[in-house]
């Protein structure tokens, strides 16, 4: 792989529920500030929790393995991208995605999914609170490890 794999890292505790990510994603292709066709979506819970969810770019992607026309393909960054020109609308990808992250869009007449905007995800750029960050895989893991170490340190000091 020529570039280090990057990922849209999600920190749900930082999410403020502003929906900027959905709007930024939807406005990319449809030029409308209307969140329905967004490839990223916030799931709201009754207790106030908000979880932003987008495609995980699975290594062993079920959507990719059922696509028969080459409409879904993995690019050099390891991202599974969709080519609307090649989509025949069989909806197989949508039927097999375990996380509901590939949807068939009537407006686009093709399957749409997150392709990380060719390396410049608009959702991460639009996020005001740092809940979504576009960082290298290794940094995402490192940040989590450091955060956990810090919390252990705090606990140790409290004791």
């Amino acid at each position: 792989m020529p570039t280090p794999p990057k990922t849209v890292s999600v920190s749900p505790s930082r999410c403020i529920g502003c929906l900027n990510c959905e709007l930024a994603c939807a406005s990319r292709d449809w030029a409308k500030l209307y969140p329905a066709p967004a490839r990223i979506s916030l799931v709201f819970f009754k207790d106030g929790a908000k979880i932003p969810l987008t495609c995980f770019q699975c290594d062993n992607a079920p959507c990719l393995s059922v696509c028969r026309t080459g409409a879904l393909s993995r690019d050099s960054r390891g991202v599974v991208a969709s080519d609307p020109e090649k989509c025949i609308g069989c909806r197989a990808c949508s039927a097999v995605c375990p996380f509901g992250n590939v949807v068939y869009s009537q407006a686009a007449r093709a399957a749409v999914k997150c392709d990380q905007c060719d390396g410049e995800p608009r959702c991460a750029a639009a996020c005001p609170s740092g809940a979504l960050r576009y960082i290298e895989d290794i940094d995402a893991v490192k940040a989590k490890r450091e955060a956990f170490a810090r919390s252990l340190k705090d606990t140790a000091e409290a004791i």
Partner: protein
Amino acid sequence: MPGQLETPRPGNGRGPGAPPASPQPEPPRSATPLLVEGTVNGIRISVPKGTTLLRAARLCGVEIPTLCHHEGLPPEGSCRLCVAEIRGQLAVSCMFPLRDDGFKALTDTPAVMDARRYVLSLLINRAPKAPRIRKLADEYGVAPDPRFMKDPDGCVRCGRCVRACRANGPEAIALAGRGFGRSVTGPFRKPPEACIGCLACALCCPTGKITFAEKDGARRIWDREFSLAPCPECGARVFTAEQIAFYGGSASAACPSCRKKLMASELKKAAAYEAPDGLPLP
């Protein structure tokens, strides 16, 4: 190249699935990537050997009208709209692989325009109401010719639906018969038993002849009725039971938006243990 996309999926009862075949019409014959250079309407272009003339023209920004061509399906060359002139002859550009250096293709000579107008006059007799064909006919100044008008049913017999069905796996429909009797149908001109109701044929149809209806949790297409499986979480009906079985899914699986919610609630449980990351705000 028919047969390239015929690998059945698991659940089809015809063996295990295989990785998807590339629908590239003509792979280069040589192991090393070779380029061929030539011109389309005088515009110089260099493309990998075996690239179709249609693709080369589109790369040049030269627009060639097509009906039966689909980027994701093997070419069939049945609508004949994409004719272009190369080596002094007319060729169907979606099926014409460029193999030799110094090709000179022309897409707007009088011969090409005449051929295209003639083809359009035949197509418009098959589908006089299809918006796409009417637009092309207006553009090329073609009117329907009553000599060839016989039962215009809106289908131009381009076979895009058949190729889409074959690519997806069910191979439920095919073109049957000859001449005026030729039509897209299931085996023995009966509602296709292998159909899974995925709607790929309807989406790929360039004239809008293939229609479907969804009513009371059922989908009707090809004179067959499919019951749409209700989502156990929210009751939404998204896929037909046949579709889910064919793609190897579980009949009790939730609909895509509920799957998203289920995943989110899993992540929420994990987020409860998430330590503050201490990073500054962006």
